[in-house]
């Protein structure tokens, strides 16, 4: 029994890392722009399908490199055309728009690639388990954790050490002052959105190797991302990362003790956090009032 629990905790961390990747992109966009991007799952699905389409031409590794920036480019177009008019307004407008976009993306992927799931091939050598005992630690999951760590590390490095990152961080605190100081806030928001969508696209390519690739792949993953942000704390990227890991582990433990509640448990956690500490574990007070 202890082994099952330990395995599930460990596996939960791996799955949680994946949730964290998606949640971080979402959090980035939310912190700077105040836009609740419900279409994040749709961008994830697009990234996955773009990779699926590219694999026969440039292989899995090529698709991994190319699909996320392509998705980010599409994200920039969406931001420029649709989201920009909503900055500074009630966050509800952004939510409504992106909510509708989520449906549009799902139906567009259904239209282009069909309603049925499509087979997504990952290189065979990634498919083997580390050992017979630790069978759930497959090469692919290790690879996924490495990619997530690199992406998260890269993101934090950009935010801490580059001028763009500094401006984004300053912008999340006080965008008006940043604008007064001469920074082109429009471009800043666009780039920030692009980075967030890049992470969604990357999460999509990784997800397609793990799960079945169908038009609803994003819809199933969007809610854990929101929960990760709420649990970890609005306004804190580190909190989001922790939130993602926590819900992964919670889900894994629920599978051991209360298997039909693996999805419900993350909402219970969210409910508890909202009751006891509404700003989340590492969140700042007064976000999105």
């Amino acid at each position: 029994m202890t082994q099952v629990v330990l395995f599930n905790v460990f596996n939960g961390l791996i799955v949680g890392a994946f949730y964290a990747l998606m949640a971080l992109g979402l959090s980035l966009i939310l912190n700077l722009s105040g836009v609740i991007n419900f279409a994040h799952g749709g961008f994830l699905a697009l990234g996955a399908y773009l990779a699926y389409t590219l694999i026969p031409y440039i292989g899995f590794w090529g698709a991994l490199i190319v699909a996320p920036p392509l998705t980010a480019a599409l994200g920039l177009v969406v931001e420029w055309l649709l989201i920009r008019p909503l900055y500074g307004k009630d966050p509800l407008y952004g939510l409504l728009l992106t909510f509708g976009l989520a449906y549009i993306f799902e139906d567009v992927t259904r239209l282009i690639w069909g309603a049925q799931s499509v087979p997504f091939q990952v290189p065979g050598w990634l498919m083997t388990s580390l050992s017979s005992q630790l069978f759930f630690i497959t090469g692919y999951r290790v690879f996924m954790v490495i990619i997530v760590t690199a992406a998260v590390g890269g993101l934090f490095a950009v935010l801490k050490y580059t001028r763009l990152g500094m401006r984004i961080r300053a912008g999340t605190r006080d965008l008006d002052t940043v604008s007064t100081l001469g920074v082109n806030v429009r471009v800043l928001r666009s780039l920030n959105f692009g980075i967030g969508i890049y992470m969604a696209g990357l999460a999509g390519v990784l997800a397609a190797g793990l799960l079945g690739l169908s038009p609803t792949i994003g819809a199933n993953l969007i809610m854990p991302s929101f929960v990760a942000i709420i649990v970890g704390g609005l306004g804190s990227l580190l909190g989001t990362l922790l939130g993602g890991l926590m819900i992964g582990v919670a889900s894994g433990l629920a599978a051991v003790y209360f298997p039909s509640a693996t999805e419900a448990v993350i909402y219970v956690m969210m409910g508890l956090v909202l009751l006891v500490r509404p700003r989340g574990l590492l969140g700042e007070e007064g976000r999105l009032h």
Partner: protein
Amino acid sequence: MPKSNWRAGVNRRTLVKSGAALAAAQFASPFVIRARAADAVKIGLDNPLTGTYAGPGKNELVGCQMALDEINAKGGILGRPVELLVEDSSSGDAGTAVQKARKLIEGDKVDFLLGNVNSALALAMAQVSNEKGILHIVPGGHTDAITGASCHWNVFRVCNTTQMEAAAVCAALVKEYGKKFYYITPDYAFGHTLESGMVKAAGALGGERVGGDLAPLGAVDFSSYLIKAQAANPDVIVFLVQGDDMLNAMKQAVQFGLQNKVHLAGAQQEMEPLEGLPPEARIGTWVLEWYWNQPGVPHVAEFVEATKKRTGRVPTARTWFGYLSVWTCALAAAKANSLKAVDMAKALQDFHLPSEIALGPNPAFYRAGQNQLLASLFVGNAQPSGSAPDDLFHVTDVVNGAAIASSVEESGCKMTWPT
């Protein structure tokens, strides 16, 4: 300051107007296949077009369309052209399915109601169709209750019951793999009845349930369940999850290399998830309800060709369900020489479908007193590829549904007819 070239804010009037427009859109015409004719016979299809079950729903729709074209080419129903009105029931929201059913029956005045892939939605819709006295064919909702404890005189079901699927596959599993089963079951009506059917059928052969988990519908990650399953040391891990859940579970199980330690199998399998799995994950013993590759069985090849011409792919069991469902409507009306639901329902009791619609080695007929279609079940093994690119299933045994179905009494169906 950033230049804003949009009007500031959305004013309340706009919001109210758009809300009203949205509400009105709910009552707009459904997607109609064929231009409306005043005297057309209408068939209403209330099935998932979005969400988890969009894949099977789409294939059932294709089957319906194929039957519709054939029927209209032959003069329609009782000399009148036939229309198919299509509504999206959603994949899991019973409220939407019921609302659309009411709209089709009361608003569009359909003569027949078809649906739903989701067993729970099918049951909810059956309440409505029974209340309104409309002939209702369920192409692909499997839970036993539809022609069991919750049976109605006006509701007919094409696909197998979960009890039949369990009975068909259990003998093969126990004989070939062993007696200890661990179940991964979707946590809703279909899953519950399928698991209890399996436990019962396996138990009769000496099989033992060493453990199991109920997974929420739409669960994305099965690794925790698979960890538990492996720890229980079964002979077989029985996957009862369907659609995308099946795909995720099998993909992950094979990634873990579990097929090298235990056998992976299940009851109901479908072409849709098999086509979506990477080739190395197309393994295991399953039962299909209809398969396209039936050498020597008349008319099947023509049906396969017609489907390929329309969609570029082979027909799946879902295509056949939709096809047979719409043909049932036409044949029932023809036999009863009437569109009154009670007359047609009576005409369908013990009604045998012609071989060009039955498309299988055994006769296909609706059992009297239960309205359940008994036909063939195809037990076999998934394979990465076969004689043709779409040949993803190797049939080892074709079971006659009539031979393994529980009796009408055992099913719990007590049918009452309107006076």
